[in-house]
């Protein structure tokens, strides 16, 4: 086992060094050229893995970004004789700006528009390249100079090969570092919906745009290298067909895996090359056979292995989790906490109407620090709607919600999270593939401040990262999950997952916990453990509001209960008072005869 882990950390380094060393061995030029292209494709595919595989945003338009990068440097270096390095800078600016514009328009709308619109703008840019006189129309631009660095000119294919693969390695490291950061964790959560990351304080719309721009800029770099490798550009390799090919690489390699990008790029490039060569000679006539084979292979592939190939390889090399909590780290800053007994949440005549239906009818109650309050009621009483009003998932129609004396009515979940309210979900919302530790660390999102793409890529955020992970570990130990830090969250039992959600909430340093049916689906012992945990938190001064169906659980745990029926509050008091309250008995058991 130990050997295997050493092997799995060393293997990629050895493989990459070997790839870099190839030109110095006597490898035929054909292979050097082919592998240069694999490198170029890999850079684009890396961005696409992040975009499509990790964040779940599909783009057919990456080839167009490659085109912007390639055309910018081609135009500047041939028309104005500028240095290719300026071309790189300008190309990055151009792709970044184009992506920002397109992203701002398309990222806000739901899933399936994005792929369609990427097809559309992929085509638009292709037609633009092909019709502008200044870009040489469909003939393109030729005579692009070679890149030079400190007097060394990258004119030979072998030199370009080394440059390209160096960029691939840098891109690989940058993407891995990024995904393994505070912002990266938020990106990894995007695929599973917006509600959870937003509740952790993540601006999902903005993060999507960031990822999109990042992926586009990687494509732009690939285009820059392409232009100076080929010394000529024309619109064809930036058309939709290539956009589709990039996606194909990612799917075949394994959409969710960084190394899958390299694997997929290699396979598709090699396969494409050989199919193009020997299919016609096998089948006689000249035709586009490789498209047919690719197409059918792709469909079969998805039917039988829709995770791609990389998971099969990964299974042979059990690796270490990338994010490990340090032994010791300085604590993160904490907010001031209210004194026990102070009113922390005050709801006054909160109302929610859906058209003519009044789901929550002028409900008022309050929660104090150091107490556990319960919100109960029969099905359809409006408990969940009330919960959504408090957490900012639904907007309030009228009334007041004050948190520590300040109004939070009308704020988004993100803003509410930043005030110090944390929540769990009725249906557990974890990122199943991420470790328990990283899932908990999501909760501390708002307590970190560094997480910009650049600082993450260069690992300048290490100190803060350690603080966040240490805090996550501390909270997991506090709730009793300290033994399970590095397991995937998806492998936990439901009860443990609910506890993990509470640990995640605790990581945000809250003064009020909102728990949506925390005991639902738990076994008896699990309920006992949860109950003990909540009592412990109460003793530490935490305020807890829980929506719950399990009467035993609520009665033995809470200090204060609010009962709702048909959208209105019908009773409020201690558990003992509620148990004998006539209106409550009527609501739950029907009228007394």
């Amino acid at each position: 086992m130990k050997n295997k882990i050493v092997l799995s950390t060393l293997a990629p380094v050895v493989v990459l060094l070997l790839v870099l060393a190839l030109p110095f061995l006597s490898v035929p030029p054909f292979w050097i050229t082919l592998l240069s292209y694999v490198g170029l494709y890999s850079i684009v595919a890396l961005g696409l893995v992040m975009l499509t595989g990790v964040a779940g945003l599909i783009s057919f338009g990456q080839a167009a970004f490659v085109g912007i990068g390639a055309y910018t440097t081609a135009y500047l270096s041939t028309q104005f004789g500028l240095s290719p390095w300026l071309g790189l800078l300008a190309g990055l600016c151009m792709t970044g700006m184009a992506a920002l514009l397109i992203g701002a328009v398309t990222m806000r709308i739901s899933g399936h528009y994005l792929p369609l619109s990427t097809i559309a703008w992929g085509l638009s840019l292709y037609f633009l390249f092909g019709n502008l006189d200044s870009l040489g129309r469909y003939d393109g631009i030729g005579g692009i100079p070679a890149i030079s660095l400190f007097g060394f000119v990258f004119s030979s294919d072998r030199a370009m090969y080394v440059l390209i693969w160096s960029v691939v390695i840098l891109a690989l490291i940058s993407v891995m570092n990024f995904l393994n950061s505070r912002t990266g964790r938020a990106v990894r959560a995007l695929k599973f919906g917006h509600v959870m990351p937003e509740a952790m304080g993540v601006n999902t719309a903005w993060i999507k745009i960031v990822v999109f721009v990042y992926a586009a800029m990687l494509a732009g770099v690939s285009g820059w290298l392409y232009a100076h490798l080929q010394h000529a550009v024309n619109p064809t390799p930036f058309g939709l067909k290539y956009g589709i090919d990039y996606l194909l690489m990612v799917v075949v390699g394994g959409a969710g895996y960084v190394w899958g990008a390299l694997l997929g790029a290699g396979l598709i490039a090699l396969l494409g090359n050989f199919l193009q060569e020997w299919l016609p000679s096998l089948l006689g006539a000249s035709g586009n056979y490789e498209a047919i084979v690719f197409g059918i292979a792709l469909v079969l592939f998805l039917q039988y292995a829709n995770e791609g190939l990389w998971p099969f390889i990964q299974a042979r090399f059990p690796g270490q989790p990338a994010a490990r909590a340090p032994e010791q780290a300085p604590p993160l800053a904490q907010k001031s906490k209210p004194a026990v007994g102070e009113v922390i949440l005050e709801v006054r005549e909160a109302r929610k109407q859906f058209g003519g239906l009044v789901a929550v009818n002028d409900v008022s109650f309050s929660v104090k620090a150091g107490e556990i309050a319960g919100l109960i009621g029969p099905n359809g009483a409006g408990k969940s709607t009330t919960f959504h009003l408090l957490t900012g998932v639904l907007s309030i129609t009228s009334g007041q919600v004050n948190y520590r004396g300040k109004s939070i009515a009308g704020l988004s979940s993100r803003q509410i999270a930043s005030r110090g309210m944390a929540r769990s979900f009725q249906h557990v919302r974890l990122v199943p593939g991420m470790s328990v530790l990283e899932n908990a660390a999501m909760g501390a999102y708002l307590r970190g401040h560094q997480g910009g793409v650049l600082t993450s890529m260069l690992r300048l955020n290490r100190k803060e990262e350690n603080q966040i992970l240490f805090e996550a570990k501390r909270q997991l130990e506090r709730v009793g999950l300290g033994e399970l830090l590095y397991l995937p969250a998806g492998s936990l039992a439901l009860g443990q997952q609910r506890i993990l959600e509470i640990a995640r909430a605790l990581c945000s340093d809250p003064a009020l916990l909102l728990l949506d049916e925390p005991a639902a689906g738990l076994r008896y012992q699990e309920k006992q453990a949860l109950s003990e945990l909540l009592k412990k938190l109460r003793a530490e001064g935490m305020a807890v509001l829980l929506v719950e169906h399990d009467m035993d659980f609520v009665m033995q745990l809470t200090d204060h209960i609010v009962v709702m029926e048909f959208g209105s509050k019908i009773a409020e008091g201690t558990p003992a008072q509620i148990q004998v309250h006539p209106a409550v008995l009527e609501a739950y058991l029907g009228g007394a005869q």
Partner: protein
Amino acid sequence: MDASIFAVLVQDGITTGAIYALLSLALVLVFSVTRVILLPQGEFVAFGALTLAAIQSGHAPQTALLLLALGVATLCCELVSNLRRSPGKLLGLLPKLASKYLLFPLALYLLTLNLPLQDLPMLLQIALALAIVVPMGPMVYRLAYQPLAHASILVLLIVSLGVHLAMVGLGLLMFGPEGSNTLPFTDAQWAIGEMTISAQSLIVIATVMALIVAIYFYFGRSLSGKALRATAVNRLGARLVGIGTNEAGKLAFTLSAAIGALCGILIAPFTIINYESGFLIALKGFVGAIFGGLASYPIAAAGALGVGLIESFSSFWASSFKDLIVFTVIIPVLLWRSLGSNHIDEEA
């Protein structure tokens, strides 16, 4: 630009726009029923047009052979899955399956080899072309999509890509790289003042309108139409009342293949169609469908009409930028939709 040019452009725009509208309806239909974004819709357009062109020039269309191959593959698929599930019932099912997937394509194939294709009346030629292309719809669904019916939209979209790639490749193999026109339905045209109205355009518009009315009644009045709508609204609910997802999927694909092939037949007298031009045509239908948010049929149709008009006018003013303009229109449309959407996420 004078009034007569304007009139010609409007007429052109409405004619092609009507065809895009029909395509956008098919795309919305397939998406809402199966969650498949049907990129290969365009291939049905090209297959329809090129099959008719082959028939009119007296060649046996190769698509008949493709249909036979697809039929055999589908039959194998069905046999294997039935063998696994309920081997007992297989014997009873066999005649039905064999006639649907083997005998029918075989009969069509033999017909195309032996009929005097060139001399048939045009309506028969069209019927033959449709009979060859339309059954491919459900077969493609059975082979490519049905095993993944519960996968995510992303996976289904990539399947669509694969099917699209394969079908374009097959199109090149069957029809060669050259494009073809089909014969016009009629040469008649009338002059009203300075305007000339071609009977051809009127036929296209009338056909599209008749089809839209037929689709409207199909969804509003017939049981299978209502079943499709039910599946579109709630797949699980529809299954619980006995509407199979697979049957609904096959039906949706049949309709969309039929609409696609018909669009190809309608557009081929105006525009030269080659093996890959279906894709761009269908994409313009997509642009229309996006206007309607992939959900609303009337807005999708109106949007598609708009796309036709924009295309026709931009081909007059800036012909080489025609496609660029049409596909850039999508950006403001998306912006408009994104401002209008109130972003309700999951269970919220």
